[in-house]
């Protein structure tokens, strides 16, 4: 369980820039949350000057603990994120976190990290943690994106990757198809892979989870569900696991053992 105290901190925007036509990166200065945030955790943010009411969950994309900086990467999908994209440096954002439990890490074997769409964001911090902070074998990173215009992710992860593989929906870069299609070759090339961690769409995670379970590879999935609070009181994000136990994506997750969700 997350035993770190949850905080609300006003984080000033350090930079907010466009990565592609519909994806932005946002760096906020919020040293207290950053000092305790772990890979796979999330924050709930609110632009107090904006017109939306509820906070929105964003996975922690990366942290700079020395400078107290938090990186978030978001798709400009709705009114709130479109307003967020308009904000200038210095604008205050209310950040609540760190929330939920991150990925688990074991000191054995190599990890295959898989991300799809903006679900790639938490893969960045996870990859840095594995390769730099834990000093274990560098992870293999597999990213599923729409097309060659979404290769900006390389700048964030290539230093932490043993190998970086892309699949694109249209075949405009890397292998054409879905991320799952690239997994057999990766497992053949890296038989030391003992763990898979995935963050992406439900369809993507379900397929990969089933593959991992069949192959006996430990697999964790990071779920996303609509939530109002982020800390276990609204019950917007609950689901029943395969064991029959009811879970809250926010407080018990967002990372779950793949068997409990898709097994």
């Amino acid at each position, binding site marked *: 369980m997350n035993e770190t*105290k*949850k*905080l*609300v901190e006003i984080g000033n925007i350090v930079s907010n820039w466009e990565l592609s036509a519909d994806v932005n990166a946002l760096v906020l200065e919020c040293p207290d949350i950053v000092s305790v945030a772990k890979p796979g955790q999330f924050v709930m943010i*609110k632009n107090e000057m904006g017109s*939306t*009411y*509820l*906070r929105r969950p964003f996975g922690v994309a990366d942290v700079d603990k020395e400078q107290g900086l938090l990186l978030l990467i978001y798709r400009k999908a709705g009114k709130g994120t479109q307003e967020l994209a308009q904000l200038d440096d210095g604008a205050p954002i209310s950040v*609540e976190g760190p929330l939920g439990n991150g990925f688990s890490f074991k000191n054995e074997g190599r990890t295959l990290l898989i991300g799809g769409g903006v679900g790639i964001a938490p893969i960045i911090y996870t990859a840095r943690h594995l390769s730099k902070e834990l000093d274990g074998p560098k992870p293999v990173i597999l990213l599923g994106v729409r097309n060659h215009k979404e290769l900006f992710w390389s700048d964030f992860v290539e230093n932490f990757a043993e190998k970086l593989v892309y699949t694109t929906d249209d075949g405009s870069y890397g292998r054409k198809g879905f991320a799952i299609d690239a997994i057999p070759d990766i497992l053949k090339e890296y038989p030391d892979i003992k763990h898979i961690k995935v963050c992406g769409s439900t369809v993507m995670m379900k397929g990969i989870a089933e593959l991992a379970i069949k192959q006996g590879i430990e697999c964790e999935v990071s779920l996303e569900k*609509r*939530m*109002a*609070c*982020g*800390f*276990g*009181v*609204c*019950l*917007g*994000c*609950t689901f*029943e696991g395969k064991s029959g136990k*009811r879970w809250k994506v926010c407080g018990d997750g967002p990372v779950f053992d793949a068997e409990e969700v898709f097994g």
Partner: protein
Amino acid sequence: MNLTRLATDFAGIRMATPVMGASGTFGFGVEYSDFLDLDQVGAIISKGLTPLPRAGNEGVRIAETPSGMLNCIGLENPGIDVFLRDILPKVRKEAPNTAFIANFSGSSVEDYGIMAEKLDVDGVDGIEVNISCPNVKEGGIVFGTDPKAAAAVTKEVKAHTTKPVIVKLSPNVTDITVMARAVEKAGADALALINTLTGMVIDINTWKPLLGNVTGGLSGPAVKPIAVRMVYQVAQAVNIPIMGLGGIATAEDAIEFLLAGASTVAVGAENFVHPDAVVRVAEGIDAYLEKHNLSHVSELVGKVKIG
């Protein structure tokens, strides 16, 4: 914060402040301990309890709406027995000084009596009878829109408890004062109003309702003027104390409810957005009392000047 001018006795429930965390938005209270001092919370009002565990509704349960939100959680809760065995002892250990009000509903008049009796235990300071959840058939809404049924539930609960009984009213009625008078006559010690207003959002890309349960309950700042109006009307109609709620986000909002005739207030959806809201609202009321040279919060209750 000067707690002497905020301390409130609400129908026999002693509270540090008149500001509570509303049912369904405040968990069991302890979930908020990272964000605020539970000693400064007027009362924790529990998530709605039912006779048996409930998983709640399928599909999307939360939708943002202009200045508010819709929910159709569907009373997901562990059931009253698990609450009494596992949750209440934990809450009393972590928040020993905070008043605790248990909110509950059933699907028959008898259910309400059985629940009230089970909740008649140490550690529960009052009970809130939910006859107004719009999201499940068993959430009491059938009792909340018919004055005779509401009175029957109230009588049944009163016969099975020694605790102060608060009845939470639905705004989804033609005349809320009829309901208020009916439950007052049946013996309710206090009223809470309003529960959520029934609403709906349609996704114009799929032509389907956004919420899994088709409709949901609207809360947040959008409902506040309706809630203030209803508190005002009910305050003219009954002699029992009123807990006002519906869209309270700030002390200024809460003071409107007090002036309209509520002697206490509860913060709901705002807890999701600003989890320190219950205490922040109490602090703001205290600052207002200081500024206006008032010695106790009760001096505001029902003081709206009409005509």
